């Protein structure tokens, strides 16, 4: 046993052994991870750090004298700022509205097209089309349609008997949020549609045959066959759409000019309307924590499922 050669360390130049380590040894991980993580630190880590620093400072472009001291001012202000919490509330409403709308619409579209054979590609393309539209284009198109005087929606409404009033879709405070949600849903429901369609196709047809042999009505089939099979996908979509809804900015900002404040719009307004970069950064940090929480939920969902798949 003592005269065994330990392989792997024949005489080599230093350079060659470093190379060996990087391409086929423990160093490979470093080779692969260092450049991307450095870049990530630079383009995301640095701004995040800067945001945290700003949030403990008072950088207000209109009042340069305030800057330079470490302070909790912004966080104290945040906790007592009714408008900020209203913005958070609006974000929540917006998120739930878009999630609900996208899921209903996406599921409806998926259920309607799942067994369609003729023009299958056409139907699918139609339902995916809105997703391919950039959010700013969605905002512009709906902005034109929502126009209180000349928009097609009001023109169509006026054609109805007894309807005369011009609906101020984007100016009326009680309508604007639903109106914005409609735009976001239109733009985003295809994500739900695609997920649902894939999930529905994964359900074996025999399950439905068995169910109908057992006398289940179409609604019962949906309840007891379809729903349990797409439960997981549903959960994933909910989290994903929550994240999308939370991040949403272009639709809200472009359609209301920033008058309707969700957390993202409030962040923007604090920086580019009030020029209070520190307070904006504080709101931004709050938003980061919310997205981190959503990401953890998402990972928890998908990774646990991944493990379960691997085990079975």
């Amino acid at each position, binding site marked *: 046993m003592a005269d065994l050669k330990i392989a792997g360390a024949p005489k080599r130049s230093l350079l060659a052994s470093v190379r060996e380590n990087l*391409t086929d040894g423990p160093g490979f991980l470093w080779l*692969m991870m260092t450049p991307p993580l450095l870049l990530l630190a630079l383009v995301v880590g640095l701004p995040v750090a800067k945001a945290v620093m700003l949030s403990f400072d008072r950088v207000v472009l209109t009042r340069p004298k305030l800057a330079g001291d470490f302070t909790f001012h912004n966080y104290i202000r945040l906790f007592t700022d009714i408008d900020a919490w209203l913005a958070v509330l609006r974000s929540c409403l917006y998120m739930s509205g878009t999630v609900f709308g996208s899921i209903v619409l996406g599921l409806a579209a998926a259920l309607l*097209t799942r067994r369609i054979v003729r023009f299958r590609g056409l139907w699918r393309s*139609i339902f995916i089309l809105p997703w391919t539209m*950039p959010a*700013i284009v969605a905002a512009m198109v709906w902005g034109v349609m929502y126009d209180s005087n000349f928009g097609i929606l009001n023109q169509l409404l006026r054609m109805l008997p007894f309807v005369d009033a011009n609906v101020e879709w984007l100016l009326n405070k009680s309508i604007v949020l639903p109106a914005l949600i409609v735009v976001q849903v239109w733009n985003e429901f295809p994500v739900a549609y695609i997920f649902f369609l894939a999930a529905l196709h994964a359900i074996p047809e025999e399950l439905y045959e068995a169910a109908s042999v057992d006398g289940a009505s179409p609604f019962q089939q949906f309840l007891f066959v379809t729903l349990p099979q797409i439960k997981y996908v549903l959960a994933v979509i909910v989290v994903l759409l929550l994240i999308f809804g939370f991040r949403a900015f272009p639709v809200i900002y472009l359609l209301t000019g920033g008058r309707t404040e969700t957390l993202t719009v409030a962040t923007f307004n604090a920086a580019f309307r009030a020029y209070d970069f520190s307070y904006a950064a504080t709101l931004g940090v709050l938003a980061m924590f919310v997205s981190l929480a959503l990401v953890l939920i998402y990972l928890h969902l998908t990774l646990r499922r991944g493990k379960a798949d691997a085990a079975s």
Partner: protein
Amino acid sequence: MARILHMAALVALAIVVAFPVYWMIVMAMTPLGFSRQITTIIPTNLTFDNFASLVVERPMLRWLWNSTLVATLASGISLVIGLSCGYALSRLNFRGSYIVLVLVLASQMIPSTSILVPLYALFKDLGLLNTIQGVVIGHISLVLPLAIWMSKGFFDSLPEELEGAARLDGCSRLGALWFVAMPLVTPGLAAIFVYGFVTSWNDFLFPRHFVQSENLWTAAAGLTSFRGEYFTLFEPQMAASIIFALPVVVLFFFLQRRMVSGSLTGGVK
């Protein structure tokens, strides 16, 4: 009967969903100023003048070129650099991989407004405001996490044994990545590139706020300038929207299969 109801529902839903796109096209082809008098939803006299005026009266071509440049650079750099991280996350079971995963995904999901503010402050100090480079760097922060996450997904879909076989056949880990894994994910890489390209193309926040000079704007930034707070003309807005959206829509449908599977990464298999 059930069938007819089904078809009717399908057609109705499709019409509702497709209508805004149809309307955008109609509006874009309506003679300037006439959209306010439209009384039917079937258009009569159509024109391409609005598209022409974009090019003549606005620096639309310049903006499109800027967009192409920024999006290509941001997506290309992100892909080239991010790929290896996706590979490591997919293949190397290392300590802390979960943390990296969370960091990457969180970076992707942070609202861009949260990044905009500190990035603006940083760029101001570094003199990167009002430069194309600034916009590219900003967009890399949006695209890099996406490239990492998506490439992990594509590598995950390759059987691990392939690289095992390659390593026994005389490849280093790097060689196995290069000779076996890379050729097989190339179509996926195209999808990632397009995704990153589209992400950068669609963003107006960074170019609009990092750059003052109009001729350095991307098309997204230029497009949003059409929508003033009060009064704007519908027709050029819609024409510009179409020109802006068209490349993206075409790319999407061209790569539809892969785009969809890419976006599902981590979701349904």
